[in-house]
């Protein structure tokens, strides 16, 4: 089984998690920029964070044969913080040109404030300008209204629905998002959001088209193996191997390939790690025994 984990906040995870993910079949992760728990007070902290996403995390993942991609954005929660919001927006364009940045995200609504409206809209425009799809967070509270407002903003901005991945769906939001033409993300969590059984029931009810499953693992109680566990539950419930592959690999690859920066052949060829053979030259790194 091969897994493209389309939403994992690896900066909050230990290196052992990469190892466990690799053993569970994860060949690629996409790490969206998000709220790191502790509010940031200056733009520089964001830049160091973005540099980590395009630099250090890529290196950390590569050591376990995992390709690391990311999405860059001003997250909805900190869009409300006037100490950083405009300054971060000014720095986004240069990151959105970087290799391995496959989307603008996470953007969307947290509290549905006027500032969130403004920076969500402006970042959708940035995504259009840089030819990137958008990874859209939906609020934990008042989710259904948040999703409706998201759809309304996408239409207002004229953002192509097939280039939007609306995340953290639940039973109530599924019909709404399916009808919109957007892709649907589901975050499988130990306690909150969505669990494996409910997820499989949704897939049985609504099919696998445009359906994407993630662990959204972060600093909270979460589990980087949730995509693999959902795949196991799908198999137990009688889903064919192709359908499972579509949900945990094919769909996220198809969605993020819309960036024009995801080389499928490269992805299927395996890891681009520091340790790989390059022109027949293999160098064992770290201390030799």
């Amino acid at each position, binding site marked *: 089984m091969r897994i493209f984990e389309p939403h994992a906040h690896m900066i909050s995870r230990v290196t052992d998690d990469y190892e466990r993910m690799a053993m569970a079949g994860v060949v690629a992760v996409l790490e969206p920029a998000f709220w790191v728990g502790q509010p940031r007070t200056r733009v520089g902290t964001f830049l160091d964070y973005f*540099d980590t996403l*395009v*630099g250090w995390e*890529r*290196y950390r993942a590569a050591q376990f044969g995992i390709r690391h991609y990311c999405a860059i954005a001003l997250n909805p929660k900190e869009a409300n913080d006037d100490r950083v919001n405009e300054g971060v927006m000014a720095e986004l364009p*240069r990151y959105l*040109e*970087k*290799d*391995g940045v496959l989307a603008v995200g996470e953007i969307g609504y947290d509290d549905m404030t006027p500032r969130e409206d403004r920076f969500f809209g402006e970042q959708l425009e940035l995504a259009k300008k840089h030819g990137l799809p958008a990874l859209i967070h939906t609020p934990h509270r008042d989710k259904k209204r948040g999703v409706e407002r998201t759809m309304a903003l996408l239409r207002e901005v004229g953002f192509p629905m097939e280039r939007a991945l609306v995340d953290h769906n639940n039973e109530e939001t599924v019909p709404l998002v399916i009808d919109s033409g957007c892709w649907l993300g589901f975050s499988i969590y130990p306690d909150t959001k969505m669990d494996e059984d409910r997820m499989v029931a949704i897939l049985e009810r609504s099919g696998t088209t445009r359906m994407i499953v993630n662990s959204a693992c972060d600093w909270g109680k979460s589990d980087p193996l949730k995509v693999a566990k959902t795949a196991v539950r799908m198999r137990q419930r009688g889903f064919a191997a192709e359908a499972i592959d579509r949900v945990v690999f094919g769909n996220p690859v198809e969605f993020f390939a819309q960036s*024009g*920066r995801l080389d499928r052949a490269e992805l299927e060829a395996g890891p*681009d790690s*520091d*340790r790989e053979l*390059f*022109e027949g*030259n293999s*160098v*064992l*790194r*770290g*201390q*030799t*025994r």
Partner: protein
Amino acid sequence: MLSELLALVSARAGVDGAAWLDGACAGLSAGQGALAELFPAASRRVGRGPLGAASPREYWRVDDGARVALLLAASGREPTVTLAAARDLYFSGDAREKVGVLRALPWLDSDVAGDPAALATVLDAVRVNQGEIFEAALLDDGYGARHLPPHEFRKAVLKAVFLGLPLARIAGLAARADAELSASLLDYVHEREAAGRSVPVDLWAVAALHPPPGLVAKLVGLLEHPDSRHRAAAAHALRLAGDARARPFVADRAAREPDAAVAAALRT
């Protein structure tokens, strides 16, 4: 250099990639186009496979060639400005971008003493943990091999040993090696031996250029190592050390040496 690179990249980047690079370089040469936007895009425009350049650039990738070409095109107008720009691209770049900047530094900096911006860049690169960045800074015709200040150079060589990199790929190492480096290398050998671990065989030829006390005795001992690679390395290093005290042991081993290559090394 620029036209040579453009030809190499063109041969591997495909029609679209080659046209993109030609256009970007022409624009930069004429003072147009934003280097900061072109530079990160290079990998996805031209690809990341081997460039196919001759030694010492046989490890370059296609995007390395393209990024060096972009910087060379921009430097035609204002070399010093480009070095500062290259430093900024390095510090805001991902790993591929950093490697691209490092590969360009020897071509951009004609100052024998080393431009401050270029030195700041390469000093950062030899301190990182990411292999490809460190290698681009130090190995082959890397800028660091020639321009790192002596103390930083010694530390970088020791790090290369620690990482298990082939020391033969550090250009000009023999000329820059000194007694302090040899002493550090021998300390490293002791640390490895105390831990019961192996010692990289290519270390001896560097340490032997300025042999510290005790080194020749260690090399003589290695002449009896069961692994022929260690014996060959010891024979080679003893020749470099040129210590007459080792001669009877070398002659004795040469008479018994079963490996033809090692025997030849012992007789020279």
